């Protein structure tokens, strides 16, 4: 009943309908009040953002629809670490900032600067920096000022194609971006608002991806990250080196490839997310969700990754986003081109 024993399964618990077009992305509010139940935001091609909460009877309901702000697809959403602000990135080239106050969501700022479709937004752990990326190949870093003003700190140019996603390290002020140009770039500043690309992970030099990289997710400690790609693989990287520290010596240490998980999905893997535990979820164009677990190994080579299960036909169409619930590490949400958001529960005993 509570996950002890029994076969491992990913059981669908709820199906959230409401979006009138494909559901692109999801974000769980990371910081709820004491005793509050989880809050999920979803966004999509219908230009809206929907907020979902658990109802007293255990079902889930859409409590808010954020609309009439973006005039094109909302591609991605992200909560600030304190859970009070929601950033929404849109194909209309703007990023909107919403504040939840007095039971209502209000758009308190609109960030303009990108030349075309904004693909992703991410808040730094400190909460004061917001990164956005776009088809214009650039990554912008904004800093929040008093009064809901946002200043542009830097414009990072380096990718040669559409940038699909940006994600801050969970602890350090280090930013990772992934792109249609097949590379993963790591950015850090020198302490003086001067941001540089401190590492590029490529196919040729770092066992990187051979096609578009769609998503990136750090584990909770920040010493590992997973990326997924159009090349149908997931790659795990050792990110324990603090790349924001300047190297005075010769050999500049780098983040290393640890493992490539291949053969699990037959189509582009659009999303991967690392739970606060040891689970990695992936969602792909083959309509399936795969779950992997990191196994600590006593062998010198380090951890390995094992498939726990593959949920075929999790949705009727491409899965665009998978996200573990921060408050309940066995609950997973998925969003799909079929317009639905599904909630799943991982049940059973996973032997380490």
């Amino acid at each position: 009943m509570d996950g002890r024993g029994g076969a491992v399964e990913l059981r669908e618990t709820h199906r959230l309908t409401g979006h009138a077009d494909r559901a692109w992305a999801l974000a769980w509010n990371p910081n709820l009040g004491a005793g509050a139940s989880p809050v999920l935001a979803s966004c999509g091609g219908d230009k809206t953002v929907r907020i979902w909460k658990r109802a007293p009877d255990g079902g889930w309901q859409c409590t808010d629809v954020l609309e009439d702000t973006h005039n094109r697809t909302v591609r991605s959403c992200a909560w600030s670490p304190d859970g009070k602000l929601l950033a929404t990135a849109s194909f209309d080239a703007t990023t909107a900032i919403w504040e939840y106050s007095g039971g209502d969501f209000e758009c308190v700022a609109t960030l303009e600067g990108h030349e075309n479709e904004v693909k992703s937004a991410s808040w730094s752990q400190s909460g004061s920096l917001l990164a956005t990326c776009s088809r214009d190949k650039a990554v912008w870093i904004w800093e929040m000022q008093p009064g809901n003003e946002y200043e542009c700190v830097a414009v990072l140019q380096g990718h040669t194609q559409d940038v699909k996603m940006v994600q801050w390290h969970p602890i350090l002020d280090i930013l990772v971006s992934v792109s249609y140009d097949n590379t993963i770039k790591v950015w850090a500043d020198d302490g003086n608002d001067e941001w540089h690309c401190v590492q590029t992970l490529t196919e040729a030099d770092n066992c990187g991806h051979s096609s578009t990289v769609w998503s990136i997710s750090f584990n909770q400690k920040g010493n590992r990250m997973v990326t997924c790609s159009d090349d149908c693989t997931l790659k795990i990287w050792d990110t324990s080196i603090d790349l924001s520290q300047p190297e005075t010596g010769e050999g500049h240490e780098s983040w290393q490839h640890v493992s490539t998980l291949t053969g699990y999905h037959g189509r582009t893997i659009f999303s991967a997310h690392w739970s606060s535990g040891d689970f990695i979820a992936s969602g792909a164009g083959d309509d399936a969700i795969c779950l992997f677990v990191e196994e600590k190994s006593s062998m010198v080579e380090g951890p390995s990754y094992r498939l726990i299960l593959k949920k075929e036909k999790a949705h009727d169409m491409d899965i665009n986003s998978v996200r573990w619930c921060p408050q309940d590490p066995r609950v997973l949400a998925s969003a799909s081109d079929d317009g639905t958001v599904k909630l799943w529960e991982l049940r059973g005993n996973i032997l380490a």
Partner: protein
Amino acid sequence: MDQQPKDDIDIFEPTVTLDQTHYQDGYKNGYDDGLVSGKEDGRQVGLKVGFQVGEELGFYKGCLDVWMSAIRLDQDAFSARVRKNMEQLAALLSNYPLSDPENNQVQEMMQNIRMKFRVIMASLGAKLDYEGRPTSSKEDF
């Protein structure tokens, strides 16, 4: 058999070199014509491009002048970071080689100026844009 006297004119020479003479005449006529029309075309193109560059740089400089005036009235009109960006824009503008149009870095310098201007605009939350310039990315989707 007999040696030709050296200072005898070869009466056949003009006939034999006739086509060469005509070629040279034609070349000279063409070259002179081209020189005149090329100068005129070049003048037109130079005027046009020079005007476009001047207008765009003048626009940014005008904005800077207004911002500098605002700062003189109120030192805290803008945050330290925005002021720094404005100073960087001023430096980029004054480094632009107006008298050296063939400097092959002018394209890149103009891109840097445009980007710096957009960063300041974004930080001020203003929607002002220089209308004359072409939009950059016209890509497939």
